[in-house]
């Protein structure tokens, strides 16, 4: 563990009665959930159900219309919280700074807060890039990378912070299955090594059930179900069942009339 990390343990997150509207359209309609320290909490749900908006609230980028978010019991909206806890969000799009190289992006937190010497920073940068399966990209510009590579760089950038809470917005959505496994393993490794609290938004059922301690399914701004992977699998809620078991059929269903003759 790094000496600069004052508290190597994950934080707890509580979301209480969170509501948010954009231009009169209510996106989050009262979300309550609690994430324990060191837990991997997966949020699943259809596109447009408000998952990204929820993550932005949890990390304090958007102010809630109603309700509150507590990090270790303190509101995320208090000004000191950002310097007290190290929190990181891996954006759905990566959100790398296009004017900086990949290496500068990954090391940005350390450079701007002057936490390490340039040599140490470049060492940490290549370490973290390697952890997400990237090599020799530090001098490239973000627009030279594929979508999946950008996402992995964004994860590396979050790892550099050595966060106590890390939020992933669809971390595997643009990755090939092999890279997705690397990311899944990295999420588990962080939990086991530094006991970071992780909140993972994903539609990727394999990732979700592979890493989750608990899963919440959200639809249309509300939580439909919440529980351990096994509990969620057994839920009777039809929407959850459809969402978890959706599979396309290779053979279209036979027409009703056909059955009469067989």
């Amino acid at each position: 563990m790094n000496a600069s990390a004052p508290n190597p343990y994950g934080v707890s997150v509580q979301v209480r009665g969170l509501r948010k509207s954009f231009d009169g359209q209510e996106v989050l309609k009262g979300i309550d959930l609690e994430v324990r320290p060191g837990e991997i909490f997966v949020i699943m749900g259809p596109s447009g159900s408000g998952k990204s908006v929820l993550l932005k609230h949890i990390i304090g980028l958007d102010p809630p219309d109603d309700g509150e978010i507590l990090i270790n019991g303190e509101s995320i909206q208090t000004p000191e919280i950002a310097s007290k806890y190290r929190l990181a969000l891996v954006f759905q799009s990566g959100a790398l700074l296009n004017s900086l190289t990949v290496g500068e992006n990954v090391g940005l937190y350390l450079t701007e807060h002057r936490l390490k010497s340039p040599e140490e920073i470049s060492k940490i940068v290549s370490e973290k890039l390697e952890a997400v399966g990237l090599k020799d990209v530090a001098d490239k510009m973000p627009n030279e990378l594929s979508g999946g590579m950008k996402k992995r760089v964004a994860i590396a950038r979050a790892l550099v912070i050595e966060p106590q809470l890390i939020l992933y917005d669809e971390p595997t959505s643009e990755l090939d299955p092999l890279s997705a496994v690397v990311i899944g393993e990295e999420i588990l490794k962080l939990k086991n090594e530094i006991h970071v609290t992780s909140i993972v938004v994903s539609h990727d059922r394999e990732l979700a059930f592979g890493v989750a301690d608990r899963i919440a399914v959200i639809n249309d701004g509300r939580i439909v179900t919440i529980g351990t992977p096994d509990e969620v699998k057994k839920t009777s809620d039809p929407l959850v069942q459809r969402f978890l078991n959706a599979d396309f059929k290779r053979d279209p269903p036979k027409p009703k009339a056909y059955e009469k003759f067989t």
Partner: protein
Amino acid sequence: MFENIGEIVLLFWRTLLALPLVWRQRQKVFEQFFEIGNASLLMVCILSFFIGGVLALQTGPLLTEKSLGSYLGGIVGYSICRELAPIMMSILIAGRIGSAMAAEIGSMRVYQEIDALRTMNINPIHYLVLPRLVAMAFALPMLVIVAILVGWFGGAVVAEGNNHIGLSFQAFYFSLRQFVESKDVANGIFKTFCFALIIAVVSCHQGLMTIGGPRGIGRSVTKAVVNSIVLIVIFDYVLTRVLMLFNK
């Protein structure tokens, strides 16, 4: 635009409060500074040479006819350093650099780069606005000094070359030095400094406020330039009036 004046003033104030951090951001200040110079030095020279030239061309023959030809250097010199160089160059830079600032920050906003900075506990005002404001506050007055000198030169060239005027180089500069004092130049530079702050703050503010994809960026750029120019022209009057009080 005026509904945002409060926000613009607030952004300016917050940037001023961050001034002690400027040394930490010096690298970015230098980058911005050279970018501004690189992008506009040639334009500034061409523009001010011809402004000085056309001024001499318009007034020269008339003055010569009334045998006031020896005042030409003074008139050209005075109007360039007090008014024309500051305002024309500021408008040029609003179009050339203000637009670029609004576009760059606007696209960072739209593509969530600014959100990413905030999650890393990096203040966008310190990281983006401060270096641009400081670089602009130095670069624009320096460009205007160049513009004043080149403008005077342009006036002198036309005064000597045009056969309706025929005032020699030496006579032009002699007249100029008789009328133009260093406080006139200082006056122009001070106004330019204020215009530089206007351009940087208005453009950065507009960039930070950008919403809604590539179209939003386009809108921000237009607004940044138009609002900067309007404010520059209004402030030009106000500042000129205020400076008059001090000159008595």
